[in-house]
């Protein structure tokens, strides 16, 4: 009964976010330019990653630097399962025979990537989830670095640092939009589930939560596995969006982009995760257009190269300066007005 009322109270959030994503897809469809189409695909993938990250960080309050490792695992599953067997034989001769012969559609690869990543999230998480705070953050980073070191050197199975090509490219925006919307719903469903609520209680009041019998490592592990699955599926789709994977695609650069988008949007908010991506991605895109040059009347106005990155950094700092808890803070979009979950209390220790 209580569950049902939570569901009814919060369902507006994923619906609004899905509508927003649909709006982006429609713009891309309406514009029809292929590079822009690809940009919107990128945005959807980024939504999947950031929402995946949110599922863990937002609910547990533990900063993870390691989630991109799961995207890496997922991306390589896509390479293992969708490249034509002949090409696989030359690039990755060490694959077992059954995998070598496999050629499945991209959506199945995304599911497989998610499952594979979830499995490893379970293995790593069983060890790491006992940690908390910054020790957990560093341990997740060490996990990322380990996965990267292994995938960068295991030539026979991952082709080492070389790009693995031949992954069928999917250039339609709809599968990516659906994936992003699914990720939003999964994240929402988890956050209102028994485990999600328990985890958030543990985030806000760890002592009280432990005292009331919440097994913190266990609920964290559940969140870790679910978010790992989302990241894995996202990684597989990422592979299909550009047709190749390399280990360094899934390393520090992507880690910091996703984390930044989440923190700028608001760490504790699903709406923040999605808005963080949409706002920062739009900003990047506008800056890129400005850099490429915009016709204003008779003259062309263009920013010098490199200004885009600098401006992005400055804008991020400014947003955080004025909204230290991110654009959304801890509140969600609910249609009527932002619903505040619980105010942050700085300095009450």
């Amino acid at each position, binding site marked *: 009964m209580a569950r049902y009322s939570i569901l009814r109270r919060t369902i507006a959030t994923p619906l609004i976010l899905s509508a927003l994503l649909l709006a982006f897809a429609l713009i891309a469809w309406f514009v029809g330019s292929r590079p822009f*189409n*690809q940009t919107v695909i990128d945005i959807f993938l980024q939504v999947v990653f950031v929402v995946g990250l949110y599922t863990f960080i937002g609910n547990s309050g533990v900063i993870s630097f390691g989630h991109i490792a799961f995207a890496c695992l997922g991306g390589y599953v896509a390479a293992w399962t969708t490249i034509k067997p002949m090409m696989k034989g030359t690039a990755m001769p060490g694959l077992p025979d059954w995998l070598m012969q496999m050629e499945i559609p991209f959506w199945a690869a995304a599911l497989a990537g998610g499952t594979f990543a979830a499995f490893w999230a379970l293995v790593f998480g069983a060890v790491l989830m006992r940690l908390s705070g910054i020790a957990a953050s560093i341990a997740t980073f060490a996990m990322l670095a380990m996965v990267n070191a292994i995938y960068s050197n295991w030539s026979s199975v991952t082709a080492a640092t*070389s*790009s693995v*090509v031949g992954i069928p490219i999917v250039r339609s925006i709809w599968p990516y939009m659906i994936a992003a919307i699914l990720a939003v719903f999964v994240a929402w469903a988890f956050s209102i589930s028994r485990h999600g609520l328990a985890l958030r209680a543990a985030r806000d009041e760890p002592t009280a939560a432990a005292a009331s019998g919440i097994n913190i490592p266990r609920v964290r592990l559940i969140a870790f596995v679910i978010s790992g699955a989302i990241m894995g599926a996202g990684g597989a789709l990422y592979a299909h969006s*550009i047709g190749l994977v390399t280990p360094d695609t899934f390393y520090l650069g992507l880690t910091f982009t996703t984390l930044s988008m989440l923190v700028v949007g608001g760490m504790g908010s699903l709406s923040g995760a999605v808005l963080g991506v949409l706002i920062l991605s739009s900003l990047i895109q506008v800056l890129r257009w400005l*850099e490429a040059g915009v*016709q204003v009347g008779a003259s062309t106005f263009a920013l010098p*190269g*490199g200004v885009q990155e600098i401006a992005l950094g400055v804008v991020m700092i400014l947003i955080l300066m004025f909204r230290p808890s991110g654009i959304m803070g801890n509140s969600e979009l609910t249609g009527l007005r932002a619903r505040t979950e619980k105010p942050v209390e700085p300095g009450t220790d």
Partner: protein
Amino acid sequence: MKKLTAILAATTCLSSAALADDDRIIVGFATAETGFMQAYDKPAQDAAMIRIAEINEAGGLLGKPIEVVKADTKTDRAEGAKAGLSVIDQGADMVVVSCDYDFGAPAALAAESNGLISFFLCAESIKAGIQGVGPNSFSASVLAAVQGATMAEWAYNKKEARTFYRLLDTWTEYNKGICDGFDWMLPQLPEAKLVGEDTFLNEDASIAAQITRIKSLPEEPDAIMLCTMMPGAVSAIKQLRAAGINSMILNGSGVDGSYWLSAVPDLSNFYVPVQGSIYGDDPNPAVNEFNAKYTEVTGAPPATQYTYPGYVMIDVWAKAVERAGTTETSAVVAELEKMVDEPTLFGPRTFTSELHHQNRARYLIVETNNGKPGVVDEWTISSPIPVADLMK
């Protein structure tokens, strides 16, 4: 949101203007104008522009002027795919992609799936071609493995090197490629012996442990095959010499250039294979003329030999287009694949239906002595490296 669509509409209008124009030929550059790769793409692209200007001055290609469209990959793979699509949408007949295989591949794949020819500016991996991207993809440079093989065979024959040490930076495929070529050549040299091997990472702050391993050998090796690239190469070379190791150091072309030599004062016994010399002493006077022209156009002389493949690229492609009488992909590819030892300013070029890359090439050997680089020799490996060995 209205503003956004307005900007979008503006950019798409700009690009569609170039579409479906039959009175010109369009070359699309999906290369890095910003970010890390820019330093590598820009010189080769400038060289390509010089060749394009020469062709246009001489009346164009098939009587039509060559026009250039560009899109910035920002040294980012996802952006690379967009840049590829962008130049294709602007009507490119041929797509030029980033120098490095990893960064160029997304745009090349976009060209491939649209049935267009793609040329890597200077990629040296076999995958930058049929084996990686597909049947319409080419590279203008020479395989990294040829560099390693060239250095091994040359040092063995001309410098009497017998004991070799192999030091590999596992950072990139290019580095591994050099060492692969070295590994292929070494067993063919009867008295050559590999006395040790080690690996490091380009970003390693110190390679002291690797150096200690070399120093613990009973005797200093005759030659060290150093498979690495910038920026780690300078660090490795400096540390090797600082530790008092004086063996000859053999390299890939990636360390060509004099711009970094100030970091290792009085460097000697140091050898680099190059396709053409930037030092003004190329045996072919036409190369020196090109250098002068490049200096005139860009304001500075070429910094490394990686400037040259851009010129070769437009050269061979334009020849193939002339011979085919069209820019239509399959006809041009067929003409390119007919090229056997096609003379270019920077050595002969061969393309086959099996390999769109050079598995054998004439290299100039540049020796650095007391901090002064200069061409000392020329070498072509005795037999081409078989494709099967390259695919290992």
